[in-house]
C-alpha cells in the first residue's frame, strides 16, 4: 500500500501513523473487500469523487481525515485490481457522464432538463410555441420520432398550409380599387367569425377574403392531418388569420409559424416543424419558398381575389373582386386538392405494404402525380426558346412529373403536340395525323387540377396570341 507516496500530505511527523494505518487497514480490509454488488461499487465511486475534490484543498487535514483518505484509496485499489492511475481516470469519466446533462433544449436560457443556466445560445428557436424555447437537433429528432408513432396510431399525417393565395387573400384597404368599394358594405361581422368569409380588419387596415371551400377543407383535412400554418407574413398577421380560419382553435392550436420564426430569410423550412419529413405534405402557391422540400410540396393555383394581388403577380385582367365573381365552391382548387389529399392518405395507410414507419408520403405523392398524364407522349413545338436545353424547361419537367413521356422526335407513338401556334411543322403534323394539339396551359391545368383535362378546351386556335396570360381561375 502506498499511502505515503500517494498522499499529498506528507509531513514527517505523521509518517509513522500512516504506516501503522496501512498495516491496520490492510488486515481490516480483507474482511470487507469483496463487494461485488453494484451498490457498493457506486458508493465507492462517489466517495472517490469527494476525495478527488478534497485532495488539492485539504493539505492541512487532520489525521482522522487522512485515515479516511487512506481507507478510500485502499478500497479503490482493491476493487479495481488494476493500475491505480487508469482506474482513477475511468471512474472519473464514468461519473462525469452520469452527471453531465446533454442540455436537449432551453427555455429562457435555462436547460429544460437540469435547469442550469446556459451561456451559449444554440439549437433551433421554437418561438411560435413559446417565447424563449429552443431545442437541440437531437431532441428534435427524438420528439419527431415519438410524435410520429403517436400520429400514425391516429392515422394522421402532417399538413403544412400556406395562408396568402392558398387559403385566403388579403389586401390593404388603401390598395383597393374603386370597383372594389362595394365589398366594404358586404363584410361579415367580426363577432361570428366562423360563418363569414369576407372580413374587414380595421386595426390592421386590411380586408381578407377566405378562399371558397376553405372551411370545409380545414374541417375535413383536420381528420387526416395534424395541421400547421406557415406563412411569410409576420406574427401578428398570422395569428389574426388563424383566428379567422380557426376561431375555436381546434385545428392549429399553437402550430402557427410566421416569417419571424423561420431560420432562413425568404425561405420556408420544415426544420421548425415538429414532424418527420417523410410524413409532411405542404400546400403552398410559391414553389421557390420551399427549395429544400419540393418533394413534399403540392403546388396550389394562386387565389387572387383582390385587384392589388392580381397586379402584384402581373395579371392585367379584372380581378375576381372587380368581376363580382369567385372561385367555384364545389370544384375550386381547395376542393380538388382535398380529393388528392384524401387519395394520398388512403394509399399511405391502406395500400402500402411495408412497415408504417418506413412509409414515405413523398413517394406516394410522386406516384399519385405520375398517374395524371400516364400514357401521354408529348412533343413540344416552339414552346422553348431554340437554344434552350429542352429537358430543363419547367414545362418539360412538369410533364414528366405528371407521368408523361417527353420527346423531341415525332413518331406514331406521340399522343400530344404542345404548341402555341398552329403553323409550326409539328403542329401541322399533329393535325394531319389526328393527334391532340394542345396549349402549354393544358399541362399546367393538369398540374394544378390533378387530373387530365379535356384536350378540346385547350386546342390551339389559329392566330392566337403567343403565350396567352393565364388569367387566374380561368378553369373554374
Amino acid at each position, binding site marked *: 500500500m502506498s499511502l505515503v507516496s500517494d498522499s499529498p500530505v506528507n509531513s514527517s511527523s505523521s509518517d509513522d501513523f500512516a504506516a501503522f494505518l496501512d498495516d491496520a487497514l490492510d488486515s481490516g480490509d480483507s474482511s470487507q473487500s469483496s463487494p461485488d454488488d453494484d451498490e457498493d461499487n457506486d458508493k465507492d465511486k462517489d466517495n472517490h469523487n469527494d476525495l478527488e475534490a478534497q485532495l488539492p484543498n485539504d493539505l492541512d487535514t487532520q489525521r482522522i481525515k487522512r485515515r479516511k483518505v487512506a481507507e478510500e484509496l485502499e478500497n479503490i485499489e482493491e476493487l479495481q485490481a488494476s493500475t491505480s492511475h487508469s482506474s482513477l481516470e475511468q471512474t472519473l469519466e464514468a461519473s462525469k457522464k452520469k452527471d453531465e446533462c446533454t442540455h436537449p433544449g432551453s*427555455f429562457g*436560457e*435555462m436547460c429544460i*432538463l437540469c*435547469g*442550469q443556466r446556459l451561456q451559449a445560445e444554440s439549437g433551433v428557436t421554437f418561438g411560435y410555441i413559446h417565447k424563449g424555447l429552443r431545442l437541440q437537433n437531437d431532441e428534435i429528432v427524438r420528439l419527431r420520432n*415519438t410524435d410520429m408513432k*403517436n400520429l400514425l396510431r391516429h392515422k394522421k399525417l402532417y399538413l403544412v398550409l400556406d395562408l396568402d393565395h392558398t387559403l385566403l387573400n388579403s389586401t390593404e384597404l388603401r390598395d383597393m380599387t374603386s370597383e372594389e368599394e362595394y365589398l366594404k358594405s358586404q363584410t361579415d361581422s367580426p363577432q361570428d367569425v366562423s360563418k363569414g368569409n369576407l372580413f374587414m380588419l380595421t386595426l390592421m387596415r386590411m380586408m381578407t377574403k377566405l378562399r371558397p371551400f376553405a372551411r370545409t377543407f380545414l374541417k375535413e383535412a383536420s381528420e387526416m392531418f395534424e395541421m400547421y400554418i406557415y406563412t411569410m407574413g409576420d406574427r401578428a398577421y398570422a395569428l389574426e388569420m388563424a383566428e379567422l380560419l380557426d376561431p*375555436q382553435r381546434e385545428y392549429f392550436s399553437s402550430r402557427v409559424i410566421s416569417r419571424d420564426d423561420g431560420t432562413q430569410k425568404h425561405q420556408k423550412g420544415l426544420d421548425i416543424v415538429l414532424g418527420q419529413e417523410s410524413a409532411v405534405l405542404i400546400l403552398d402557391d410559391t414553389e421557390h419558398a420551399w427549395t429544400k422540400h419540393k418533394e413534399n410540396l403540392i403546388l396550389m393555383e394562386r387565389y387572387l381575389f383582390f385587384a392589388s394581388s392580381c397586379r402584384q403577380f402581373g395579371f392585367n385582367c379584372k380581378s375576381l373582386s372587380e368581376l363580382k365573381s369567385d372561385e367555384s365552391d364545389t370544384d375550386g382548387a381547395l376542393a380538388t386538392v382535398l380529393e388528392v389529399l384524401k387519395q394520398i392518405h388512403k394509399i399511405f395507410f391502406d395500400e402500402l405494404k411495408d412497415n408504417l414507419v418506413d412509409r414515405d408520403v413523398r413517394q406516394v405523392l410522386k406516384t399519385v402525380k405520375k398517374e395524371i398524364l400516364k400514357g401521354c407522349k408529348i412533343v413540344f413545338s416552339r414552346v422553348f426558346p431554340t437554344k434552350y436545353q429542352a429537358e430543363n424547361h419547367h414545362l418539360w419537367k412538369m410533364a414528366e412529373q405528371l407521368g408523361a413521356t417527353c420527346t423531341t422526335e415525332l413518331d406514331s407513338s406521340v399522343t400530344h403536340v404542345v404548341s402555341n401556334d398552329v403553323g409550326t411543322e409539328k403542329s401541322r403534323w399533329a393535325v394531319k395525323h389526328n393527334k391532340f394539339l394542345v396549349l402549354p396551359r393544358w399541362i399546367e391545368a393538369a398540374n394544378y387540377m390533378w387530373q387530365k383535362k379535356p384536350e378540346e378546351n385547350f386546342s390551339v386556335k389559329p392566330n392566337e396570341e403567343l403565350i396567352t396570360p393565364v388569367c387566374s381561375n380561368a378553369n373554374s
Partner: protein
Amino acid sequence: MFFHIVLERNMQLHPRHFGRNLRDNIVAKLMKDVEGTCSGRHGFVVAITGIENIGKGLIRDGTGFVSFPVKYQCVVFRPFKGEILEAVVTMVNKMGFFAEAGPVQIFVSNHLIPDDMEFQSGDMPNYTTSDGSVKIQKDSEVRLKIIGTRVDATEIFCIGTIKDDFLGVINDPAAA
C-alpha cells in the same frame, strides 16, 4: 416564496403634484411604477403594503422635478430552485407543458414528466397515464418542483419537474 420586505426607491415628481395631496400622489405613483414589476434580486413585486417613510425631496437641477427617497413595505414573490410550487397549466404540447404561477412562467419538459404519462394530441392535448386516471391538460392545477430559475426585468422563467414523489396534478378540471 413570498417575502414581506422593505425596499427603497427614488420617486421623481413633477411640481404640479405638490400641494396638500403630495403624499398621496407619491404613493399612487409608486404603486403604479412598482407593482407588477420584476427585479432580479427580489423577484416580482406583488403589492405595496405600507410606506415606512418619505425622505426630504431634492430639486433636480434644470428640470424642476423633485426626487423623494421613499421607503416602502411590499410583498414580493420569488421562486427558488428546489421550491415546490402550485401552478396552472397554460399550454400542453409534445415537448412538455407550460404552467403559470402568478407572473411566473414554468416549463416542464416531457423528460421531467413521469414516464408512464404519455402525450395525447387532439383538440385538447394532454398527458395521460396508461390507465387514464391522471390527466394533465390546459387549466389543470399541478404541484411541481422548480429546478431552475431566471428572473429578468419583466419576467420570471422557471424550469420545473413533476417527476418526483407527491408531485403532479392536484385537481382535474375535467372531473370538476
